[in-house]
């Protein structure tokens, strides 16, 4: 198993409890590992939450961390995946002065080519939304920043895996 650092997406299925985020992030913190991105949301199972955490670690350490996450009482199951084993996306929101939309023709081309969507337009500003790979959002950021961006934010990665994760089966086994 590799001791070289790689990018991994960690998926953690948990009970929806206060404090669990703290408990999970502490596992990364004590090993001095920076969390590249983090997203929590409901999962496909009612009442079960899902954490999607992106970290840059060696696979050897990744396995140990998964073990330490899984041993938390309220964690149902944790997995790690490489990019090729998942379908993943991030979203970026760009707030830009409305004037630019009319004054700078190039902006319209950038929007068209990037596949970004206009969420709202008013007299002062318009908001663009771009969903895709992180690099695509970053490219759009670079292209738009020439004209000035009033606000920008990017979401954490969300991801689904190509393989099945069998959480429902696992939960059924627990309740038997």
């Amino acid at each position, binding site marked *: 198993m590799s001791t070289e650092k790689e990018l991994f997406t960690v998926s953690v299925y948990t009970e929806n409890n206060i*404090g669990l985020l*703290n408990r999970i992030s502490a596992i990364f913190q*004590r090993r001095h590992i920076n969390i590249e991105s983090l997203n929590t949301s409901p999962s496909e199972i009612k009442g079960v939450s899902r954490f999607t955490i992106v970290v840059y670690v060696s696979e050897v350490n990744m396995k140990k961390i998964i*073990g*330490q996450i*899984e041993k938390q*009482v309220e*964690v149902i199951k944790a997995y790690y995946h490489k990019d090729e084993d998942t379908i993943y996306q991030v979203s970026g929101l760009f707030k830009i002065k409305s004037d630019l939309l009319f004054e700078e023709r190039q902006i319209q081309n950038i929007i068209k080519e990037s596949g970004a969507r206009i969420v709202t337009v008013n007299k002062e500003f318009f908001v663009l939304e771009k969903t895709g790979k992180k690099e695509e959002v970053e490219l759009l950021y670079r292209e738009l920043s020439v004209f000035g961006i009033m606000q920008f934010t990017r979401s954490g990665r969300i991801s689904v895996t190509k393989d099945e994760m069998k959480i429902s089966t696992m*939960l059924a086994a627990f*309740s038997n």
Partner: protein
Amino acid sequence: MRTQTITKAPSESKITERISGSEAVVRCLIEEGVSTIYGYPGGAIMPVYDELFKYQDQIHHVLTRHEQGATHAAQGYARVSGKVGVAMATSGPGATNLITGIADAQIDSTPMVCITGQVPSHLLGSDAFQETDIVGISTPVTKWNCQVTRAEDIPEVMAKAFYIAKSGRPGPVLVDITKDAQFEEFDFSYEKCEKIRSYNPIPTSSEETLKAAADLINSAKKPFVVWGQGVILGEAEEEFQTFIEKAGIPSAWTILGASAIPTSHPLNVGMVGMHGNYAPNILTNECDVLIAIGMRFDDRVTGRLDAYAKQAKVIHFEIDPAEVDKNVKTDIAVLGDAKANLAKILPFINSNSHEAWHQQFKDLYKVEYDKIIDKDLFPNKEGLTMGEVLKEINKNTDGKAVVVSDVGQHQMIACRYADFKESKSNITSGGLGTMGFCLPAAIGAKMAVPEREVVAICGDGGYQMTIQELGTIFQQQLAVKIVVLNNDFLGMVRQWQQLFFDKRYASTEMINPDFVAIAKGYYLNARKVTKREELADAVAEMIASKEPYFLEVCVEKEDNVFPMIPSGASVSEVRLE
């Protein structure tokens, strides 16, 4: 006012009583079979203390002199009794004072439930008087924790707390209860927790895994067992002894594994690790199959990992899957309960004796005996050694005492030389190395087994970290025997300074008080020994006493503990001098 009502649940009728949250806390403790708790009152936990007053015929609350003392006492109680230890404190400083003991219990897998009071829920987050985010603070050092803001949640949370603390790999749990939840009345009923859907405390191994492990053990020419506290926590002592006896395997223990089988057992080859015995350390790097049972390859056990048992195939019996491959790569992991798995593997194990291999341990023991043990136990220099004090204690207790030790040189000496005949007799802070652990832990130990001799062996440094618990010993009239091995130094740190920092004794010299006068100030019997001629009589007097007894033994100031694996060195580089 208490009223009994019967509420009809959809499927069954359940008897409930209308009581306050604080009374519920006490009732939950009673439901869990708790008879002794350790703690310290304060504003935010007062309603619970009021109920403890009413229920004092059923629960004995021991007032320690500091909340840290309460946690260590609860730990001592848990480690000796095998039950869950309970500590209680108020919010803010009361709660934060628990943290050292909680961290100690976490790393040493001690079942403990800590209950803290919290400011009323409407004040949470407002920097109220004695408010601290104890759930946040304790998260990294608890197995589980939870804040309760509604009385009706108390029974379920308490039931979960006890279940989680005790099941699987045990650990500390903290329940933080806001003051308004303590006052609130609700319909109480109690149901023990038996499972949690996201929690699998005892993983299992297939028969194939057990057979593969047995095959590897049977094929070994030089098998070697290192066992840890898992054998004791899993109450697997008998199965363990039967297993090593059938397979004829020399077996060594980690510090927390001590006493699981008698010291005198012919297959017991001593302690591994930094100040462990010579033979098991050296031969770790000569065995062909290393069988680790209920231990976690702590760095104090393994020394340099890339030079640890590289020649050996490794079998790891372990209840916590996160420990497998964490430090040492395992060839076969036998997951699950040690008691069950050792019983299951036994039929597949061939009888063996490995005599030539045993002889290697005996030969190296002889080397260690001549070089170290003989001089520790039968010194011919003027100053007293810590080892000879242990020898006297063994003689007077016939090895039947619970030996509680603090942290440092005296701890290593106590663990190396204490003669254990019964399991759960070595109580010490292994993983966290908490100075100050000993005295309060001895309180809990004595209360768990009042019929047994409990000897607390402290150094002059650690003793003064929790010395105030003499007050608890006096108030409870606990016949704990306290020995301070006084070398007027923080001895272990001084030893490192001598060996690795060119004798620059930075802040390790202690100008000590009159320990006997302090003990007498707490109305305890006390005696001080400075000469060899007085030692035997003093130890005999101490052990014969039916009351608490304090004995200070002034030992050689600059003795070192050997063998020693220097930090970062390999087990093969264990030094005899």
